[in-house]
């Protein structure tokens, strides 16, 4: 559900750059521009890596391995964004950003990396593609916004592509978690049983099922929120969103 990683972050951010010129100082702005440029470049590397691997192999399967390292590096790097909010150089909610980034990081490390058997699944490619396109657009959006030269096409892309990318990413994520379930149950991955001296138990298998179930209330909320944002920012009166 964090495929496009949008929400309050972008709304608040665009408001900050359009309405108030306060916010990050010159040094923070420079740092943020560098950060966003690096992230844009990183996800472009992943995109190019995917295309090259596809052309080399001639099939969609097993492309994860060709971009595994940059994916882990740049997706984990997004943790810095939580810090940016906490410090105040980005006007977004720490909790919301934290939630979005942590769910991405969770899928990258606690599911895809940890359960080796799912790495060859096609669902992984589905969410990686969704994430890649989303992040390239998102980080370039931030970069241009910080430089006060936002091309309309980037803004349009940011507020439009999610319509397809978000469900695509969510599908990929859910299918991947689902694929991981039997292996988690068999090996007892990350699970702790009683008795132990800390009087604690954790069943990762049940946790994954609950995570999947949590998509049901959360995904529609986030999706419709973004549709509303789209209407507000792009000001379209056509029937793109059925909300309101």
């Amino acid at each position, binding site marked *: 559900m964090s495929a496009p990683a949008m929400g309050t972050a972008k709304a608040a951010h665009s408001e900050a750059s359009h309405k108030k010129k306060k916010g990050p100082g010159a040094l923070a702005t420079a740092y943020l521009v560098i950060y966003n440029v690096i992230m844009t470049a990183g996800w472009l590397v992943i995109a190019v890596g995917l295309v090259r691997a596809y052309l080399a192999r001639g099939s969609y399967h097993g492309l994860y391995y060709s971009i595994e390292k940059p994916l882990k590096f740049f997706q984990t790097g997004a943790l810095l964004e939580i810090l940016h909010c906490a410090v105040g150089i980005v006007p977004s909610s720490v909790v919301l950003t934290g939630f979005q980034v942590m769910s991405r990081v969770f899928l990258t490390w606690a599911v895809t990396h940890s359960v080796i058997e799912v790495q060859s699944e096609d669902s992984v490619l589905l969410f990686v593609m969704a994430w890649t396109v989303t992040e390239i657009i998102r980080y370039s959006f931030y970069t241009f916004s910080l430089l006060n030269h936002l091309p309309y096409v980037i803004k349009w892309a940011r507020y439009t592509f999610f319509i397809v990318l978000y469900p695509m990413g969510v599908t990929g994520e859910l299918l991947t978690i689902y694929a991981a379930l039997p292996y988690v149950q068999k090996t007892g991955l990350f699970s702790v049983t*009683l*008795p*132990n*001296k*800390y*009087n*604690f*138990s954790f069943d990762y298998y049940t946790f994954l099922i609950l995570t999947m179930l949590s998509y049901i209330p959360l995904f529609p909320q986030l999706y419709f929120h973004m549709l509303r944002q789209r209407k507000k920012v792009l000001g379209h009166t056509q029937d793109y969103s059925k909300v309101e």
Partner: protein
Amino acid sequence: MDALALEAKGAKTDSPAAGPAPVKRPKPPKKAKRIVYFEVEILDARTKEKLLLLDKVEPTATILEIKSMFHKSNQHWYPARQSLCLDPKAKSLKDEDILQQLPVGTTATFYFRDLGAQITWAKVFLAECAGPLFIYLMFYFRLPFIYAPKYDFTTSKHWVVHLACICHSFHYVKRILENMFVHRLSPGTMPLRNIFKNCSYYWLFAAWMAYYINHPLYTTPYYGQQQVKAALIIFLFCQLGNFSIHVALRNLRQPGSKVKKIPYPTKNPFTWIFMVVSCPHYTYECGSWVGFTLMTQCVPVAFFTLIGFIRMTVWAKGKHRNYVKEFRDYPTLRSAILPFIL
């Protein structure tokens, strides 16, 4: 504002706009008082449709009285769930605000927003405390469908588990009694859906903790009796402290008075902590849970203690900030929740 009040009292009613210069004219001696009644119009804040028109409203009417009048014609919107403002985007007017002191002419237009079903603080606190009390006992008595069937209605063989049940229950019984007899709760309300949010926090955590403490495979604390005894002392000390602070805070304010005062240490040694802390009731509460964590040596309890500490620190910091803002001579030695640290 004074100019308008004078106008409403019997002078001409020409310009309803807020006049800036408050001219204090000496009141001419009058034989009969001529009250100029107000006309109150209530519009829906979103749709702007006219919901109610009240004529002959006393100028000294409060917002609460206007809300009651509105309630009479719209039974389902009781005063607590009405929000009246002078502008659709503005903040709600307070119940105590008086009509003639508002920047309105003799025809006042209010915008109405429905705040949704409301519930009083008292009811919320009761639900928050009664839940964990009973939920824990359900696990303690090992009701069916919690643990394996062969353990149904059995009791733990560890005495620390019985002690933990007594302490946990005591804590929540004390809280319920305090809510009923000690705390001077504000008569305010909160939206009904908040009760689900608040109660789930307490209820789910209580269930999570109780599950492990009363589990057939529970492991007793590592340092045995020493650990449990020390933990019990900490727990009781902090419970007494917490109660002392609640009583001290209650005695600070007379019933019905809205005057805020700085709390100070009293004869009770447990209140001497006021010298170094603004919100010692939170300090003692955290201490109680630390004691309980030590007593049960259970990670979910530690987790609950940590989250509780974070929440209470946020509240304490807010209260501390309010104290400092409100009182010029507020003691500078005091920290919000942890002496000299936080």
